[in-house]
């Protein structure tokens, strides 16, 4: 038999020299006041004599419970690879390659110093061999070669969890990109010996990018598109394997006053996540899943093939959106999750919802508004100058319908308790300047209109002087108001 030697394609021995060194003790900043004071037993038990336990593994978004041990153990982890068709979005299916039948694979939680015994099975109905690379392992390929398994076979190997942290595991069989793109990734948490500080809730979230022949939302079973993957142009960017996996009815739950810890991973294969929770500030971030703790963080980067632990105390009730703040991924590719928090309001911290308007959901479609040449010329010419009060009223109607109608209504009646009426409005008719101020600078706080109190917020509108003059003139001359005209120079004066 010929022996072939392949030319090295990538030197992939990323084994740090530091890996074999004993770890320095974590700095004091890594130990919070809330950490339970524990005496950590020194482990000198030979590997063969360690107690053997089964790993508690959970499917996303559940995280396994804390290890709660003061000694090392041999932890048995069973992973079965299955290639299966599942939903990636409503009406859209995809042939996922999975660890354990779901994307992401199950979360594993062990303790620093544990020996992880991996039993790696590849179902007989798989088309290709698979393997697993644990970023938590130190050794060639993170176990990739040791676990390389043909369909219908099973492999065993073990590694020692030398260093604490939150680590990705993923498939590393050629072509690696394709295996990862099909959903083969998950997280393993190696707790430091003293454990992590106690929190009220923990969840498991992994972002991934997917590449399909069809566009976002195109129905049916969508095959993997290698070319898009190489160009790094995903159709889907999702949390936990599908659009809506942790949103709406599947939203993560929490109560006011609780501290929520998210174990966030990014399987990639390509994108780096700008992980953010709308309406929350991360009290603590274990940067990149390591020892470094950053505090009061709005958005944290999660590299492809990396992770982060984020913690936030929920102060007020409501829905908090988990997003990749590379924001088109959220609104057009599916990267949206939710935490729904219940409990008592605290108006000092957040006043709560005061106004409500019509919101046109963006959906996944690309939104463009092509202009004709004449329209473009109009845009460049700016707002046409109204020659008379009649023209001003006519032009103002257009502005009103585009900007005011949603809150104040077709007939200018507003909404009682929320949006003051513009129809027969004593507030407006008494002093036109108040109307100008409200439009150009916004208006908040308590006002009385036609004998009724309103305490809400009107945002300032970015209209030019001509448009403000037109819309106010329109309002003054419709809805049973007392007439009059506002001129652009009045608006300009009010802006000063």
């Amino acid at each position: 038999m010929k022996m072939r030697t392949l030319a090295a394609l990538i030197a992939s021995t990323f084994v740090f020299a530091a890996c074999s060194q004993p770890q320095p003790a974590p700095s004091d900043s890594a130990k919070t006041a809330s950490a339970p004071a524990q005496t950590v037993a020194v482990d000198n038990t030979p590997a063969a004599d360690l107690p053997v336990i089964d790993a508690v593994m959970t499917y996303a978004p559940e995280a396994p419970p804390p290890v709660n041990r003061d000694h090392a153990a041999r932890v048995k982890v069973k992973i079965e690879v299955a290639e299966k068709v599942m939903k990636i979005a409503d009406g859209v299916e995809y042939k996922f390659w999975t660890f354990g039948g779901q994307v992401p694979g199950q979360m594993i939680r062990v303790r620093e110093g544990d020996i992880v015994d991996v039993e790696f099975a590849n179902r007989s109905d798989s088309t290709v061999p698979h393997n697993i690379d644990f970023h938590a392992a130190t050794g060639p390929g993170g176990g990739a070669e040791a676990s390389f398994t043909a369909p219908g076979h099973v492999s065993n190997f073990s590694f020692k969890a030398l260093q604490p942290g939150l680590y990705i595991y993923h498939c590393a069989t050629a072509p690696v990109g394709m295996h990862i793109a099909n959903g083969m990734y998950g997280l393993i948490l190696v707790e430091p010996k003293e454990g992590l500080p106690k929190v009220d809730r923990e969840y498991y979230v992994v972002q991934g990018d997917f590449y399909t022949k069809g566009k976002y939302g195109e129905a049916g079973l969508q095959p993997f598109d290698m070319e898009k993957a190489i160009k790094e142009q995903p159709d889907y960017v999702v949390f936990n394997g599908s659009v809506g996996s942790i949103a709406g009815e599947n939203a993560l739950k929490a109560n006011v006053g609780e501290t929520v810890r998210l174990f966030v991973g990014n399987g990639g294969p390509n994108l780096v996540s700008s992980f953010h929770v709308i309406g929350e500030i991360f009290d603590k971030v274990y940067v990149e899943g390591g020892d470094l703790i950053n505090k009061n963080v709005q958005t944290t980067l999660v590299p492809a093939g990396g992770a982060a632990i984020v913690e936030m105390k929920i102060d007020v009730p409501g829905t908090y959106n988990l997003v990749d703040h590379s924001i088109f991924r959220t609104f057009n590719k599916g990267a949206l999750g939710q935490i729904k928090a219940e409990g008592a309001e605290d108006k000092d911290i957040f006043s709560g919802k005061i106004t409500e308007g019509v919101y046109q959901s963006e959906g996944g479609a690309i939104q463009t508004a092509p202009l004709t040449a004449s329209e473009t010329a109009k845009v460049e010419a700016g707002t046409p100058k109204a020659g008379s009060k009649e023209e001003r009223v006519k032009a103002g109607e257009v502005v009103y319908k585009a900007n005011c109608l949603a809150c104040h209504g077709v007939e200018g009646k507003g909404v009682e308790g929320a949006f003051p009426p513009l129809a027969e409005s004593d507030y407006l008719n008494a002093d036109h300047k108040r109307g100008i101020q409200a439009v150009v600078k916004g208006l908040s706080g308590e006002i009385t209109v036609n004998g009724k109190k309103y305490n809400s917020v009107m945002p300032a509108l970015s209209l030019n002087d001509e448009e403000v003059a037109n819309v106010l003139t329109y309002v003054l001359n419709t809805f049973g108001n007392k007439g009059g005209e506002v001129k652009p120079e009045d608006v300009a004066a009010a802006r000063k």
Partner: protein
Amino acid sequence: MKLHSYLFAAVLFSGCLNVGAAGMAKIEGGSYRPLYLKKDTPLIPVKSFQLDKTPITNAEFSRFVQKHPQWQRGKVGVRHAEAQYLSHWVKQGNAYVPKAADANKPVVNVSWFAAHAYCVAQGKRLPTIDEWEYVGQASALQKNGTNEASYNRTILDWYADGGRSGLRDVGKGKANFYGVHDMHGMIWEWTEDFNSSLLNGGSNSDLYCGGGSNNATDPSNYVAFMRFGIRTSLKAPFVLKNLGFRCAK
């Protein structure tokens, strides 16, 4: 092999020569560049040979098993085939036969040893990796169709499809340049030297690194990588639901 098997093989050989040759395509020698060689390395030469136009079917393998009962399911030792050997066949009397519906589908769940024995019994052999890959490069139109978008698309679509289409009767699809069918899109196939694609890059097999520096933007590398991937994951006694073979000479 025992002496009578030799005699038997010789008789069989003379008897099947024309039939066998009729079912084989003449492959004119040439050279090719495997996926793992850089663009400026010399090509690997491939001598002229013949290759079966279709993978071996259940019916063909069943006839072989009747003549060589030591290859019947249940008779083969674990060193030569895993327990799942021919597990898709059904019991008939005191033997196992393929289901009627599977007669013209490629035989799968066969080990390297069984495939090798079959080819030897026909006076043939298993193709080498180089021979298989050389023919596998052909599209419907040319000897090397790896630069045709449709060639790569077909193969990638099959891999993306993940075997959902299942097995079909052999020879139904479009033949390639040489008149050979089903090289892609249905099953993996044993090669004589499958276990010599030892990817020896020091402590790490380069195979685990994907189509790294070698023009990785060429998707044809990916499809070839998948074949090398499956080959390196195999051991000779293994049997897989999607692994069959064809013979060469």
